């Protein structure tokens, strides 16, 4: 068989091939990505769509956890200070019911309990970043305002709604209980109980002071139960934060696996491609100029 002496097309193809792989590896090393356009790896590119969305979501869920945690913690500490206030009010009521107090003393006790009522209302009107946390979903309205016609002297302006905040793809955590449930519930009305104790103290009737104190005492347990809700929410949020941190790691590992580059491998491949390229060039330079004419003496 006659041998094809024209090596130019072959050499050009080889050079193009080695330059193209040199480019590929150079780009991989410099960008840290093995997939720049979908055709580099169609399957990985398709999977990256979900990964991109998930990554941004998980990032936002983490921020949600942080922001919701502060709300839940504020609510929890507001309720714990309400419990403290109520405990103090109960001891004031017990003191007023022992029958040894002068009428002036009882008036002082009544004023103290009235002060506690005001501070409990202040706690019920707690706001975080301008949003009232005990107003149900009516977070822009002051939940409790003074109203002389109400037995407790305050009226509830909020609603009975509650918000759940997304902290995971299929997980949302309820972040508030409406004030109507905590402070002015029909069966355990904190505000009315306090107001009743105030009027009992003012009346000076030991037995009515005593029964108002008992009624108030039972609301302490009730508020503590509501406080439990917030500490549960807090621990769920903390647990979710850990899950989200793991998700972040998983997603970024997945992204690296899909479109990332193993630096060590890429660098090795780059240097191999460099070697191959210079070998091809050297071989071309050696082979191309050689013909029989190099070895024939010029005709004399």
């Amino acid at each position: 068989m006659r041998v094809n002496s024209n090596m130019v097309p072959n050499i050009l193809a080889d050079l193009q091939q080695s330059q193209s792989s040199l480019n590929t590896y150079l780009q991989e090393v410099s960008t840290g990505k093995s997939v720049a356009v979908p055709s580099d790896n169609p399957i990985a590119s398709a999977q990256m769509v979900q990964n991109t969305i998930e990554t941004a979501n998980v990032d936002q869920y983490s921020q949600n956890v942080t922001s919701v945690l502060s709300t839940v913690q504020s609510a929890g500490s507001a309720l714990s200070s309400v419990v403290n206030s109520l405990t103090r009010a109960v001891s004031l009521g017990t003191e007023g019911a022992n029958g040894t107090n002068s009428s002036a003393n009882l008036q002082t006790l009544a004023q103290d309990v009235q002060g506690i009522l005001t501070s409990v209302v202040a706690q019920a009107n707690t706001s975080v970043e301008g949003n009232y946390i005990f107003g149900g979903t009516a977070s822009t309205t002051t939940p409790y305002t003074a109203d002389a016609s109400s037995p407790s002297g305050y009226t509830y302006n909020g609603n009975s709604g509650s918000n759940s905040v997304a902290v995971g793809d299929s997980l949302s955590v309820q972040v508030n209980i409406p004030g109507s449930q905590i402070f002015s519930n029909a069966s355990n009305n904190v505000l009315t109980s306090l107001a009743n104790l105030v009027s009992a103290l003012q009346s000076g009737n030991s037995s009515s002071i005593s029964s108002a104190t008992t009624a108030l005492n039972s609301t302490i347990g009730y508020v503590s139960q509501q406080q439990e809700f917030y500490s549960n929410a807090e621990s769920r949020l903390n647990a979710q934060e850990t899950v989200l941190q793991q998700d972040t790691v998983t997603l970024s590992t997945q992204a690296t696996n899909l479109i990332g580059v193993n630096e060590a491998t890429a660098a090795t491949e780059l240097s191999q491609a460099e070697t191959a390229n210079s070998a091809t060039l050297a071989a071309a330079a050696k082979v191309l100029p050689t013909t029989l004419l190099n070895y024939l003496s010029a005709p004399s």
Partner: protein
Amino acid sequence: MGSLTTSLLIGVQALEASQAALTATSNNIANSNTPGYTREEAQFSESPLTVQNSAVAGGGVMLNGIESVRDELLNLQIQQQTSQQSSADTVSSSLQSVQTLFASNGSDIASAFSSLSSSLAALSANPTDSSTQQSVLTAGQNLAQAFNSTANGLTTSQSAADQQVTQTVAQINSLTKQIAQLNTQLSSTVMSQQNGGTVEDQRDQLVQQLSTLTGISVSQSSDGEVITTANGSPLVMGGQSYNLQTTTGANGFQQVLDANGNNITSNIQGGQLGGAIQVRDQIVPGLLTSLNTLASQFATAFNTAQKAGFDSTGAAGQAFFTVPANGAASGISVALTSGSQVAISSDGSAGSNGNVANLSAALTNALPSGQTPANTYANLVYQVGSAVSNASAQSTSLGQSILQLTNQQSSVSGVNIDEETTNLIRYQTAYEAAARVVSTIQALSTVTLDMGSTQSY
């Protein structure tokens, strides 16, 4: 016994033969880098024997002519594969610009979906924050723009392919005309028993170019070469060329008609023309349809979720996106004008975030097409990516095969400088030897004429 004259005649024939061989060799060397050149060989044979007085003597050498060495079968294979490669190259280069629209670059649809989704999650935690509300609106606008620019990019590549159809048809017509002229020229040279080499080389070169433009089928008839498109519409028959025509079709794109006016657009395969038609009529419309379905179904789902809630002012939610019935992806836009119109609330109070979950669900629930918006889009990315990578892979493998065939063709028809140099020496020696024969015969003739004469010739 032969005479001196016979020997002289043989010597002169040998000189002529060596000269012809030297001409072929020098022409080969001169054209060693001419594209499409086929090496020439001087064809010798022995002249008939001479019989004189029952003695048999050789008749010298006869020059039968100079012939080009070519392999038609290899040419055909190269033409076919060139058509396929050129089609794959056209598809791949047309879609290169398309696939950057689907690459993750921050302004693609996936990124836009991602920021809409995370801005809704943020809204879930801060339903009353006006900047968070605004960021949902902005994310919606970015998504609409991403749909618009992706759809426009697809349409642009479709019109580019359409222009390519017109240009390629013009090039095909110009080439077939030249090929027909060369066919005419070739049939007259063949008739006059001349070597058709140069003309044939030129024609093969043009046919090769034609095969990069469209898939062709080449055959030989008594009138010369017959070239048709892959589906049999005539392009060249001997000395006659048949022009393809283009006309604007019902879909607004150029349709290709054969010389008889038949629409052959959908039958054209291979070459730049086949590739451009494939991109314009199949690949891009497929992608556009999927994109439009996605835009339309997602917008409908999101609007439904929006209408289920109340905005920050307590008013019932209005449609978030406006989508036209036709060209949903290129025409989608955000209908809302303010972040406060995002239907966050489920109960009408400003602090409720109850409807945000519905809005988020529009992003994660399956659309009527059966898949979530993200998965639908991921499928599109896969389609685009695999279309490009298949076309490039096809082009690469065909390139290897063409290189192989070209090497085979060169090994048959290519000029080898070493071989030509050797031939040069060989024919030089033969010429010198033949010249020596002539001068020897001349010397002998002189001696013979001088015999018995005082006069010296």
